[in-house]
């Protein structure tokens, strides 16, 4: 794709930088960048992401999440359209609320997951991991709506961690300060932050106290500067994706293309998952207007799903014993891994883990796994494959409910 630039020249536009790039780039000491939806964002700012992780859990972290796809849906048909698309009940979503929700194809298999924010009665913002413009348009036939792709017009920063509220209140002007202070979990408010008009949502991808701040691209740099200044005294750290990846596993939050394959991209049937199979059964509203996949999902609800998505905690003594056999202390991964890894019971394979990490906070080796429903009960003892000095071994692991880490401050 080619794009016209200011000077009228043509440039290749293979990969983009976000509107925060002028601020983030000079701070990325290790030149570590990761591609995300056609953008590049920092994997970590420092050479080691440890302090950034600790900022998420101990102080506050500032994460550029601009690459998310963002759609604005307005008009009398906005709520009915979204209600038709997503599994949660948008009709009953009040203004100022945010819904986390997946959406499915007609067979009830998950296409994507994201958030729907009701900004006004007839004005919504939807975020997603993959492009969904065509899907929205296909479903919009007959609805009186206007769908705008805001992906490249709106920049977003995620401010996560125990000090997030204090930092945000410090830059909120006038009534916004009280609005931010009383903003509850999964709620949204318009706010003026140091002269910048923004939408603030009490959301995030870390399972901690946190906010996401949505602004027009033109104000992105000012917002960054404002937050960095206000956050300095609170230990705010620009934070990259490596640290966020560990936090999201601790929070039991799944990641498309890693923990599941979009039904839109699946080449074979068994790559697809229903919300029930991803631990998202709670998002499938029971009594709501018809939506895509409803019939299949209601049938699945009745017959109990084949697969479950659960947490695994690897047993330390078992890990120590495996490494002890070769004379080593347990070698722990320093970053989250995302290689599909078999899970067994005594008789054979009963599932596979798709993400895992050592939790520096919980001091536990965690994994997120797809398990055959009959082997997914909390407390079930299973085994996770583990490579110890180039040899395949199995470490004992226990099935647990997620989130692994769920601090009170997240909702408080």
């Amino acid at each position, binding site marked *: 794709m080619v794009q016209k630039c200011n000077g009228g020249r043509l440039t290749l536009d293979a990969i983009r930088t976000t509107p925060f790039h002028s601020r983030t780039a000079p701070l990325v000491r290790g030149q570590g960048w990761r591609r995300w939806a056609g953008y590049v964002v920092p994997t970590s700012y*420092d050479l080691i992401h440890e302090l950034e992780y600790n900022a998420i859990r*101990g*102080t506050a972290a500032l994460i550029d999440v601009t690459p998310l796809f963002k759609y604005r849906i307005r008009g009398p048909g906005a709520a009915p359209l979204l209600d038709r698309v997503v599994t949660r009940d948008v009709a009953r979503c009040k203004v100022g609320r945010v819904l986390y929700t997946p959406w499915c194809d007609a067979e009830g298999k998950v296409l994507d997951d994201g958030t729907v924010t009701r900004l006004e009665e007839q004005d919504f913002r939807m975020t997603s991991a993959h492009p969904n413009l065509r899907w929205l348009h296909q479903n919009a036939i007959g609805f009186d709506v206007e769908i705008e792709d805001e992906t490249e017009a709106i920049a977003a920063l995620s401010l996560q961690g125990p000090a997030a509220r204090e930092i945000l209140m410090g830059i909120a002007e006038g009534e916004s300060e009280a609005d931010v202070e009383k903003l509850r979990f999964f709620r949204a408010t318009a706010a003026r932050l140091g002269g910048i008009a923004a939408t603030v949502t009490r959301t995030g991808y870390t399972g901690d106290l946190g906010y996401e701040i949505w602004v027009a691209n033109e104000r992105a740099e000012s917002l960054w500067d404002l937050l960095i200044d206000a956050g300095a005294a609170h230990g705010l750290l620009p934070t990259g994706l490596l640290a966020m990846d560990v936090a999201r596993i601790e929070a039991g939050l799944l990641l498309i293309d890693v923990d599941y394959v979009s039904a839109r991209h699946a080449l074979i049937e068994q790559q697809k998952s229903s919300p029930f199979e991803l631990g998202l059964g709670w998002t499938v509203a029971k009594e709501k207007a018809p939506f895509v996949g409803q019939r299949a999902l209601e049938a699945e609800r009745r017959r109990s799903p084949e697969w479950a998505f659960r947490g695994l905690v690897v047993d330390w003594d078992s890990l120590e014993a495996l490494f002890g056999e070769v004379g080593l202390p347990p070698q722990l991964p320093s970053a989250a891994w995302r290689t599909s890894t078999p899970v067994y019971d005594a008789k054979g394979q009963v599932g596979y883990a798709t993400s895992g990490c050592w939790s520096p906070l919980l*001091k536990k080796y965690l994994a997120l796994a797809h398990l055959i429903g009959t082997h997914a009960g909390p407390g079930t003892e299973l085994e996770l494959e583990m490579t110890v000095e180039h040899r395949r071994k199995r470490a004992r692991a226990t099935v647990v409910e997620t989130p692994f880490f769920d601090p009170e401050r997240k909702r408080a």
Partner: protein
Amino acid sequence: MQLSKTWDAIVIGGGHNGLVCAAYLARAGRDVLVLERRPLLGGAAVTEEVFSGFRFSVFSYVVSLLRPEIIRDLDLPGHGLHIIPLESTFNPLPDGDYLATWADADETRRELYRHSPRDADAMQEFGRLMQRMAMAVKPILGIEPPDPASWHPRDLLAMGRLGKHFRDLGARDLHALVKLMTMSSADYLGEWFESEALKAAKSASGIIGTFLGPRSPGTAYVLLHHYMGEIDGVFRAWGFARGGTGAVSEAIGSAARRFGAEIRTEAAVSRVLVEEGRAQGVVLESGEEIRARTVVSGLDPRRTFLELVERQELPDELLTAVERFRFRGSSGKVNLALSEPPNFTALPGNGPHLKGAMAIAPSVDYLERAYDDAKYGDFSRRPFLDIVMPSMIDPTMAPPGQHVMSIFVQYAPYHRKGGWDGRSREAFGDAVVDTLAEYAPNIRSAILHRQVITPADIEAVTGLSEGNIFQGELALSQLFFLRPAPAWADHRTPVRGYYQCGSGTHPGGGIMGASGRLASRAILADGPRR
């Protein structure tokens, strides 16, 4: 109110080892009561708001040695423990340069290369050797030390296992280990490195908490002791507890309560009740008598054996050994509330070096001279300083934009000629600030409040005899089967039902908790009634 209640166990002292012991006993179903003299838990691992808005890890200030199995067994993260790594070290030098180490191996290698290309390479090898040494010693931390003079099958078996363990190390590692056990840290490091700054920086961890200089034999072991710290399977890793070291004690206390232990503060024990050679409970300073089938002392060996029980209950050899047990506190602390961070001449500005450990230890001679002052009965005019600023990483420790600085200072001899009083305490504080100001001149004007703690203060507040931070020196003659006394290194005592769990017992030292855990295992192994 159950006046006549008899507890399964009473733990004297709510320091981290006492709490660990209590938590394990409670976890095993024992009915446990912890008695702490102070209003807050933790002993030397406490966080206190010394000045309004400024919270300090008043005494012990970093965490590394806390045993990972304790963190897991007691689920301390579930009780609020969050350890944040200290990633760097920074030592400013008198010539205006500095020596630093960073979290990233390449960055550290480049930094060392600046000082000595040879040392930069040697460090890789040295690091590997020390890791292997730590791996070699680690199993010892988790066992009761066998008595080599005993013919008891249990001791013989354990000695045999230990002998095999060390033989299996192979000749090179075994030789290295023996050297570490016998040499001075300066000599040992001299075999490896040429850079004076590097030798000094490393040898500093060989003297911490001891009344020895870097050229005194035995300090190489203390160096190794500080390499045994393990976070997430990585040795030689140090960190802060979010909320200060008191948060470690709070987490352990909370775990103990969750398992059913009861904890009473402001309940000072005056003595252990002994009847017919068996511990029966304790008497508080208030006169209150509390009965228990087992009594565990978390206090140091001097208090455990010479103060809490009558001498006639104990054999002479033990009394003599404990009387000879060396405490000789050698360190103090200065805690500063700062309006701004220090601005080091060698590396100006508010950089990442302030988030790690900082030290004033420019040369081995400097450290040895600091020791000379102490050897002859005074505090060091130019002391070794080990500095951290927890507020850089955990801003809740200080008001926004302001900071707390913890300075561990050595040497400050407990037995100072002329003793310790208000004047000598302030003079000691001045020597510390003067020393630091030579490297960070803004420090004087940045100080809002200053707390100076001498070994006499440590003793008065925490009860640690002679202000020794390890409940007795970490010298080879006082370790393993000799800690605290031959034949009584297994956390038991000659008084039936009376046990010891403080860091004056094996393996001792630092916020490790291993003594408390081993003591609980000895108690549980003995069954309800020994």
